[in-house]
Every structure is written in structure tokens, then in C-alpha cells.
């Protein structure tokens, strides 16, 4: 109990041979994950790439994807971190049920998620009809609907990883902060959150990536309108209906942009594990 975790020396680890029982499946798994990408790269009509990138529809879809995925991540942070805190730090009846409910969007086919969102936020939905009658607001077919669809599908990723980080964090620090005069909100904001920042960042990255690739719930709930609700995955899917090569080019653009964004964020925000 009296261990003082203040000095951790990097341990010099002896280089040992990786056991074949781990190496072989790892290599096979790696090949399985990367070969489809290689397939895309081989089929890609590289010469078309600059022309495609210059198309206003492609740029609009790319821009919309980045903006909405970022907004969905922000919304997930604002709503998801408090949920994770409640799950990890407080003891309320039905906590297990809540935790199970949170994983629902993970197992629900996104298209079904989209229908479910329509039933709630649609024009005739429980909340949607009220919004329509009271404020004249309709959500489907707007960029806000895209953000909602993405948030619905991707927030669980954030919650799960933030809750894990909270459970791993030493609550002693929070007690120490309290004895120094910090109320619970200050403790959370000034101590808990900074300490679990790597976990929050990892969760946000997962969340953003999932939001960026979101298709099923988006096309069902938000529809498809260029510049307003047509994100890159929707553009890719529709391109696939008429022009396989265009679809490949769009996929690669989405892939490249997301990899560049994630790599630069990783350098800046998260310490490489």
C-alpha cells in the first residue's frame, strides 16, 4: 500500500525472440487487415486523383465529413465523459443496466440505429414532433442530423474508453484535491480530467474515426443531399452505384485525410504507448 509511484525508470528489456505461436497469427492478422487496403491501392486510378480532388462535390463531402465528425466527437465528449464518470465514480441503482444500454449502439446495425433515430427525432417522432410544433425545427435532412447519427453510433467508443481510464486512475488524488479545498466539480476539472487525458484522447480518436466512417445511420436518418448531408462514405456508396473507380478514389481520399489528421493529433496530444 505504501508504494510511491513517483519514479518509474524505463526498464531495459532484454530483447527476446517472439514466440512463433504469437508471431504467426499476428502476421496473418496483419495481412488480413492490410491486404484490402493494398487491393484499393492497386486498383486506384492515380492519375484521376487530382481531378477528383478538385471536384466541388468531393470537396464539399470531405469538408462536411470532417466538420460533422469533429462536431460529433465534441458532442460525445460533452455528454459521454459525464456518463463515464457516473459509471466509474458513483454508485446508483441500475448502473449495470445503464452500462448495457450504452453498448446497444455498438451491436445495433447502424441502419436500424438510423430508423430508431427517425422514430425519435423524425417529423413524427416522440421528440421530433414536439420540436416541430414548438420551434418549427425539423432535424432529418440537415447537417445536425448527420452529427446526431454519428454521435449515436460513435459515443459508446468514447464512453467505454473514458470509463476504463477513470477506473484505472487513483482516486487518492481526488481525495487529496478535496482536502486542498477543491469542490467536486473542481476536482473533476482540475485533477481527474487532466490525469485521464490520455484515455480521453484515445477515446476521442476512436470516436472521431468511427464517426468519419459512419454510413448506415447517416443515410437513413439524415438522408443524402450534397453539401448538407452527403458525407464521404455516402458519396463513396453512391459512386459505387455507377463508377467503381470513382468510389475507390473517394475512399482513398477519405482514408488519407483521416490518417494524416490522426497522425498529427497523435504527435501533439497523446504520448505514444
Amino acid at each position, binding site marked *: 500500500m505504501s508504494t*510511491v509511484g513517483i519514479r518509474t525508470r524505463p526498464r531495459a528489456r532484454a530483447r527476446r525472440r517472439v514466440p512463433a505461436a504469437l508471431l504467426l497469427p499476428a502476421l496473418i492478422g496483419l495481412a488480413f487487415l492490410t491486404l484490402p487496403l493494398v487491393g484499393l491501392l492497386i486498383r486506384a486510378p492515380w492519375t484521376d486523383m487530382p481531378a477528383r480532388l478538385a471536384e466541388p462535390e468531393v470537396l464539399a463531402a470531405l469538408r462536411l465529413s470532417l466538420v460533422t465528425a469533429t462536431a460529433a466527437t465534441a458532442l460525445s465528449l460533452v455528454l459521454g465523459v459525464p456518463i463515464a464518470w457516473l459509471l466509474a465514480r458513483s454508485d446508483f441503482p441500475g448502473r449495470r443496466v445503464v452500462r448495457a444500454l450504452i453498448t446497444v449502439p455498438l451491436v445495433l446495425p447502424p441502419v436500424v440505429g438510423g430508423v430508431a433515430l427517425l422514430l425519435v427525432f423524425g417529423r413524427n417522432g416522440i421528440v421530433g414532433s414536439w420540436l416541430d410544433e414548438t420551434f418549427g425545427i425539423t432535424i432529418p435532412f440537415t447537417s445536425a442530423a448527420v452529427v446526431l447519427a454519428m454521435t449515436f453510433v460513435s459515443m459508446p467508443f468514447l464512453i467505454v474508453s473514458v470509463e476504463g481510464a477513470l477506473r484505472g486512475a487513483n482516486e487518492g488524488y481526488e481525495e487529496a484535491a478535496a482536502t486542498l*479545498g477543491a469542490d467536486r466539480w473542481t476536482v473533476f476539472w482540475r485533477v481527474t480530467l487532466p490525469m485521464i*487525458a490520455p484515455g480521453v484522447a484515445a477515446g476521442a480518436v476512436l470516436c472521431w474515426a468511427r464517426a468519419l466512417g459512419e454510413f448506415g445511420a447517416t443515410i437513413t436518418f439524415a438522408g443524402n443531399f450534397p453539401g448538407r448531408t452527403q458525407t464521404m462514405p455516402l458519396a463513396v456508396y453512391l459512386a459505387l452505384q455507377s463508377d467503381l473507380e470513382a468510389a475507390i478514389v473517394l475512399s482513398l481520399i477519405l482514408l488519407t485525410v483521416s490518417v494524416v489528421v490522426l497522425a498529427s493529433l497523435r504527435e501533439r496530444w497523446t504520448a505514444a504507448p
Partner: protein
Amino acid sequence: MNAGQQSEPDRRPGSEVRETDSGTPPGLDTHLVVERGEFRLDLRLRVAAGETVALLGPNGAGKSTALRALAGLESLSDGFVALDGRELDRVASRRGGEPGRAQWVPPERRRIGVVFQDYLLFPHLNALDNVAFGPRRQGLRRAAARARAAGWLDRVGLGDMGDRRPKQLSGGQAQRVALARALATNPALLLLDEPLAALDARTRLDTRAELHRHLTGHTGAAIVVTHDPVDALMLADRLVVIEDGRAVQEGDAESITARPRTDYVARLVGLNLYRGRAEGHRVALDGDLTLTVADPLDGPAFAAFAPSAVALFLKRPDGSPRNTWRATVSGIHRHGDNLRVQLEGPLRAAADVTPAAVAQLRLEPGQQVWAAVKASEIRAYPT
């Protein structure tokens, strides 16, 4: 005493500290009752402002529980906590039902500073901002809080370490930052949980001396929780020994070392202690043995003597009136410059002998010896 150490006025806005009109002496007044399954802590404690009390006891005695209950990190089953006349915690007496909370001040408004055993310096803040954390919460602006923190780091001798992260500090430095962090809030009560336990022997010596200096300078009350009697004797004005959740002995260093009241305390202070019945100069112990003592006494009594007062012989010694008995050596350990010999027999006792004597007597476990203690070396006092 450090000049000006406590001269900073308490600038905490809306400070809830009120000296009571009735003239309650400033300091801590508490009765802690915490029940956790089989374990029950029941501790009545008063600590005057400016006084340092050590809670001394073996592991599991309830010292840390007491400390956490005072800080408001653990809830009371019964009793109260009052600091400088202000009630922080009180459980209404039970009448058949669950204990109700009559008064409850959360940890952040108790004005109780804590130095945790593993320091718990915030890893994401440097030393300066760790110390400035408390003053910031008291409403000081960032610059003012940092200035106060810098002053405290100076006082603990770490003025040039402000920009270090906790990871980059040695154990002793981290301990001093933790102390500065707790003191920077100007607490009315300072709690230290095993403040030196995590340090190596060398660092411990320096840090203990410095900690003593700061405790002397602290105008509020202070409680040091420790299982190390040396820390307790060095740091505190008064000792409270806890065993199984209860105070078994209380007093200053002198009275406790001179007159231990339990085996645990006797072992702590290095005395052989026995319970018996005195009649004049003779104390009949609970076993068969009767000891001859210098001070005449009647009634239930303790008899105590230091291990260094015990002499060992291969044959029964004769001559001056001594207490002698036959004993079996059960263990020999190094103890300072001497060797400590554990004896079994009618009296379980420890004897300190020189290495030369051990060599001469060729002592080894299992060996039969004669033990002798002069009557003048045995202290007898009523229970």
C-alpha cells in the same frame, strides 16, 4: 521557529472559521467512532493549536481510519469532530435507527491539510502548481497563488525545484513538496499519514529533522500517524498509542518510555514489561516468578526493565541481591552495536549483550543460561 511562517493572514473569502464566543480553546476536539464490519475505532482526542500529537500503533490499529475520518474522507458511525470551536461532523446519537448526520462539512471546507503517505502529488502539475493548488482554491489569483507557493517551496528548501514534475523529484523532495502543499492552505489542523515511511533510512533522518522544524512552526494543531516510535517521539509533543481501534496509552515521550502499559508499547520503547502484584519490594508476576524491586509498592503493578539491564551467565551467579532465573536462548539478532538475545523460560525477556560476551559465553539458540537483573534496574508502577 521560522519567523513569519504563519504571518500571512487567512485571505480565504467567506472563511467559515469562527472563534466561539464561549472561549473554546482553539484546536481539535473529537470523538471518532467508525465501524467497519468487525473493526471498531473508538477514539477520544483533543489536540491544542500549536500542539503535535502522534498516533502511534501497529498496522491495522485504526490510525489511518482515524485520520481519514478527521479529513472527512470516511464517514463517522458515531461521535463528532470540532475544530477551533466549529463543528465539522456530528452523528446524532442512535435511537434504534440508523445513525443520522446532524452536521457535516465536506473535506474541501474543513480547513484540514493532509500529507498522504504516498504524497499523491498531482502528476500533471509541476511542484509549484501542486503547492499553488490549495491557495488557488481559496480564491487567490494565479499569480498570487504561485507567489505563495514559491514562498513555501523556499521554506522547505526546494525553491529551485518549482518547475519539476513529481516524477522528477526524489522521495524526500516529494515529501517536502507534499508538506508545503498541505501547509500552503494554512490549515487549522494538519494531518500527516506515515510521513516518513516511504523514505530510505538516510533521507528519513534529514527529512524527519526538517519536518520537526515545520511542525514546531505550525500554529494549528497537528496529528502525525506513524507506526515508528522514533518518528513519534521525535516529531510529537504528545503520543497517543492505539491498539485495536482504542487508545491504550497517552502521554509525553518521557512518561510513555518510562512507564509502558502494554506489551506493544514496551516493545516499541525497548523495555521488558510484566504485569503482577506488588507487596513492598516484591512483585509477584503472573507466572511463578517474583521480582525484587527498588521502589516499594502495593497492589496491581507493572514491572519493567531495559534489555541492557539483563546480564547472562553460564552458571548461577552469586553475590549481591539479584533477580535470577533460568532461561533458554531462542534467538540472537544484531541490535545497534550490541546483540539482542531473546530468552524463553519463566520470563520472556530480551537481553542486550556485547558481541564479546556472546563469544565468551558461546551463546547459540537452544542454550540454557542464567539471567540476572539488579533490583535497582527494575521500575515498578501501578497499573
